[in-house]
C-alpha cells in the first residue's frame, strides 16, 4: 500500500496551455454558443470541429505512432479531454477513435489498417457500433444476428439496437454469429460494414429524453466482403472483449462531470426559495461537498490505475470495471442534484430549447433543459457498456475469484 508514486508531474503544463489556446482560437463561435445552451449539434458542426482536431493529430493522440497516432500516455489524453471540456468544445465521438480504430490496428490486417485508420484519424468517416440486440443486452454473447458465407461474401441478417448516430454513420462494426453449433462465445465474428450497402435500414429510437440519437439497424441479406472481417472467423469475441474494456475506460469523463457541476452552480445562484438563492442553503453546499469528495476519489482511483499501468504494465486489481461503476454512479448523483435544484423551479423540461433555431422563452435558468436532458439520458449510464450489475459480476469473478 502507498508504495508506487501516483503524483502527477508537471511536464504536461505546456501541452495543456497549447490545447487551451487552440480551443480559444478554433472553436467556432456558433458551436460554442450552442454548447453553452446545451443545444444538439448537427453532423456538419461536429465534423467541422473534429476535422480541426484531426489535422492536429489530436483526435488519435493516444494511438501508437506507427498507426498515425502521437503515442500519448493516458495522462496526456486526460489533460486533452479536460481542456476540451472546460473550453466548451463538442464531445469526442468514441466509435472510430477509441473503439473501431484500436481493434483495427490491434487485430486487423495491413489492408484494413491502410484502408480505415487514416480516415478515422482525419474524421473522414463516422463509425457506429453494432453490438447490442433486442434479445441480448448485458448478455451480449447471446446475439442472434448471423452471417452466412457465400463465396467471398458474408450474407448478414439480423437486427442491432441502441446504435448511436447510425443515421449519420458511414461504417458500422458488428458482431455476428458465424457458427451456431458451438458455445455462444465461440461462434462470433467481427465485421466492418459500409452503411451504404443495400439491405441496411436505420430506424430511429426516441429516448425518454424525447430526442433522437439512438437507432435500430436492420440487416436484410446484406452482402459483406469477407475481407471486411477482422481477424479469424469465430474469434470475434476476443476482439469484442478488447473493445468493451476500452469502452468502459472511456465512459469516465471528468471533463463532462465538471461541466455538469458548473451548470449546477450557476443554477444554485439563480434558483431561489423564499426569495433567497439556493447557494446560501447549507443543504446544497453539503451536497456539493459530498460530490467534491466523490469526484476527488474517482480522480484518485483513475490516477492510481494510470500509475499502476505505467509501472507494472498490467491493469490493477479492480480495473476498468471499478471505474465504470463508480464513475457512472457519480455521474448520476451529480445529475440527480441538478434535477433537485431545478425542481424548485417547476418540473419544466423545454426539450425543444435544445434544438437549433428554437426561439422560445426559458422558464427558469437557461441551463435547465441541458441538465435535464443529461439527467434523463445518463440514467442509461449504469446500463450501457454492460450494466453495473454485470460489472459487479465481472469483478466478483475476475478480481475476487468468487
Amino acid at each position, binding site marked *: 500500500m502507498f508504495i508506487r508514486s501516483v503524483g502527477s508531474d508537471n511536464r504536461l503544463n505546456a501541452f495543456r496551455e497549447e490545447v487551451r489556446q487552440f480551443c480559444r482560437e478554433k472553436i467556432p463561435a456558433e458551436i460554442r454558443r450552442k454548447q453553452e445552451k446545451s443545444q444538439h449539434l448537427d453532423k456538419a458542426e461536429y465534423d467541422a470541429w473534429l476535422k480541426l482536431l484531426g489535422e492536429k493529430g489530436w483526435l488519435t493522440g493516444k494511438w501508437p505512432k506507427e498507426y498515425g497516432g502521437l503515442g500519448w500516455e493516458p495522462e496526456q489524453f486526460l489533460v486533452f479531454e479536460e481542456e476540451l471540456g472546460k473550453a466548451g468544445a463538442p464531445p469526442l465521438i468514441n466509435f472510430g477513435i477509441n473503439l473501431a480504430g484500436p481493434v483495427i490496428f490491434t487485430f486487423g490486417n495491413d489492408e484494413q489498417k491502410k484502408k480505415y485508420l487514416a480516415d478515422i484519424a482525419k474524421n473522414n468517416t463516422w463509425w457506429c457500433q453494432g453490438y447490442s440486440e433486442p434479445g441480448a443486452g448485458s448478455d451480449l454473447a447471446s446475439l442472434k444476428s448471423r452471417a452466412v458465407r457465400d463465396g467471398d461474401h458474408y450474407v448478414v441478417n439480423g437486427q442491432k439496437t*441502441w446504435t448511436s448516430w447510425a443515421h449519420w454513420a458511414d461504417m458500422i462494426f458488428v458482431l455476428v454469429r458465424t457458427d451456431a453449433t458451438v458455445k455462444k462465445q465461440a461462434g462470433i465474428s467481427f465485421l466492418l460494414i459500409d452503411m451504404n450497402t443495400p439491405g441496411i435500414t436505420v430506424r430511429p429510437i426516441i429516448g*425518454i429524453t424525447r430526442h433522437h440519437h439512438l437507432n435500430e439497424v436492420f440487416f436484410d441479406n446484406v452482402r459483406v466482403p469477407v475481407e471486411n472481417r477482422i481477424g479469424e472467423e469465430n474469434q470475434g469475441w476476443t476482439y469484442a472483449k478488447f473493445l468493451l474494456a476500452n469502452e468502459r475506460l472511456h465512459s469516465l469523463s471528468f471533463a463532462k462531470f465538471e461541466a455538469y457541476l458548473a451548470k449546477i452552480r450557476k443554477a444554485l445562484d439563480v434558483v431561489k*426559495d423564499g426569495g433567497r438563492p439556493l447557494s446560501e442553503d447549507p443543504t446544497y453546499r453539503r451536497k456539493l461537498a459530498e460530490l467534491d469528495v466523490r469526484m476527488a476519489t474517482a480522480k484518485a482511483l483513475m490516477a492510481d490505475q494510470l500509475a499502476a499501468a505505467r509501472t507494472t504494465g498490467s491493469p490493477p486489481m479492480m480495473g476498468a470495471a471499478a471505474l465504470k461503476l463508480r464513475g457512472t454512479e457519480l455521474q448520476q448523483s451529480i445529475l440527480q442534484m441538478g*434535477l433537485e435544484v431545478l425542481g424548485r423551479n417547476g418540473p419544466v423540461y423545454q426539450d425543444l430549447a435544445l434544438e437549433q433555431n428554437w426561439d*422560445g422563452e426559458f422558464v427558469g435558468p437557461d441551463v435547465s433543459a441541458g441538465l435535464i436532458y443529461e439527467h434523463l439520458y445518463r*440514467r*442509461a449510464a449504469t*446500463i450501457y457498456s454492460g450494466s453495473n450489475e454485470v460489472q459487479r459480476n465481472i469483478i466478483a469473478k475476475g478480481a475476487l475469484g468468487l
Partner: protein
Amino acid sequence: MTSFSADERQLLDESLQNFLSEKYGFERWQQRSGPSGDQYGSNEWRQFADLGWLGVAIPEEFGGTGGGLTELAIVMAAAGRHMVLEGLLGTVVLGAGAIELAGTQAQKGDLLPKIAAGELRLAFCHSEQDAGYARDYVTTIARPVDGGYALEGRKAFTLGAQAADLLVVSARVGAADGPVGLFLVPRETDGVSLNIAPALDARLGAEVRLSARVPGSTLLGRADVDRTASIDHLIDRAAIAVCAEACGAMAEATQNTIEYLKVREQFGQPLAKFQVLQHRLVDMSLACEEARAIVHAALEALDVGAASAQRTVWQAKVQTAQSARFVGTQSLQLHGGIGMTDELKAGHLYKRLCVCEAMFGDADWYLKKLSQTLPEHIRARTQDDRMKPPEVA
C-alpha cells in the same frame, strides 16, 4: 366532511380501475401525451364527472358526494397507476379546495357544482419564480381599482394552466404588505399571458404573467381576510394528493418491472432468477409499502383534523419522495435499455415520479422544516417525559 365506508371506497376504487384500464390504454395515452396532443381530454373529463370522481370530495349540498381527502387519494392513486393526463390536482384538490376554504356561499353554490359536473377546470397559480417551495412568498399585487382589481405579477410554471378555464391566483390585496387574497381569473382575460412549456413528464403547463383588470367578484371571500394559512393547508392537501398519485405510479412501476424480469431472459434464465435483482425487487416493493403506509396515516390525520396532521404530511412527503426516487430509478435500471425509450411505461412513470417528488416540496425541503421544529421537541424530551402525554407520531 364525512368519509366513505370501506365498502364504498372499494367500489370507488373498482370503478376507477375498471374505467381506466379499459378506456385509458397506453397506445392512446402515447398519442395524447405529446405537446400537441389532447392532454386534457374533454371526453375523458366528462366521463370522470359522470363516474363521480370529480365531485368525490365536494359536499353533497354542492353537487358532490361529500367524501374526504382519503377518497380523493383513492382517485389520485388510480390516476398515478394509469398515468392520467388530466389535471385532477389543479381542479379537484386545489381549485375546489380553494373555493371551499375561501369562497362565499354564493361562490361555492355557483362554482362547486360545475366542478363536480366537469364543466369547470382550474389551475392553482400561487407559486412565484423566486418562491421555490416557500408557501408564503407572494409579490403579485391586486390594487383596488374602479369596480375591481388591477392584478400585476408573475406566477411560476403551473401544470395544466394552459387548459384551465379559471386560474386561482394569489395576490396581496392593496399593497406589498397587504393580506393575501385568492382571485379566480378567467384564463382568457386581457392582460393574462401564458408561456406554455412541457414538463419533464411531457404534460403541459405555463408560466402566467398578469397585468390585468378583473372585477371584484373574482376575489374569493372577503377582501380583508389573509389567506396564507388556508393556502398552507391547501398545499398540505395537494402535497399528500401528489403522494397518493406517486404511490399509484410506484406500485405500477414495481409491478411492471417484476413482470418484465419474469419474462426477460439473459445468461440462460429469466432475470427474475438472479438473487441481486430479486433483492432489488424486494426493496422496491418495500419502498412502495412504506410510502403507502405513511401516506395513509397522513390522509387519516388530515381527515380527522389531528393535531399531528401537518407533521405527518411532511413526513409522508419525505418518505414518498425517497421511495419514488428509488422505485423510479431502479425500475429503469432493471428494464435495461428498453426502459430508456419512450415506448414503455417505465420511462414515463419514472418521469412522472420525478415530478411528484418535486411538486410542493422535495424531501430536502420537508426535512428542513421537520428539523426546524425539532429543537423544542428535543428540549421537551430531555426533561421528564413520564409526566407528558404520549406523542402521536
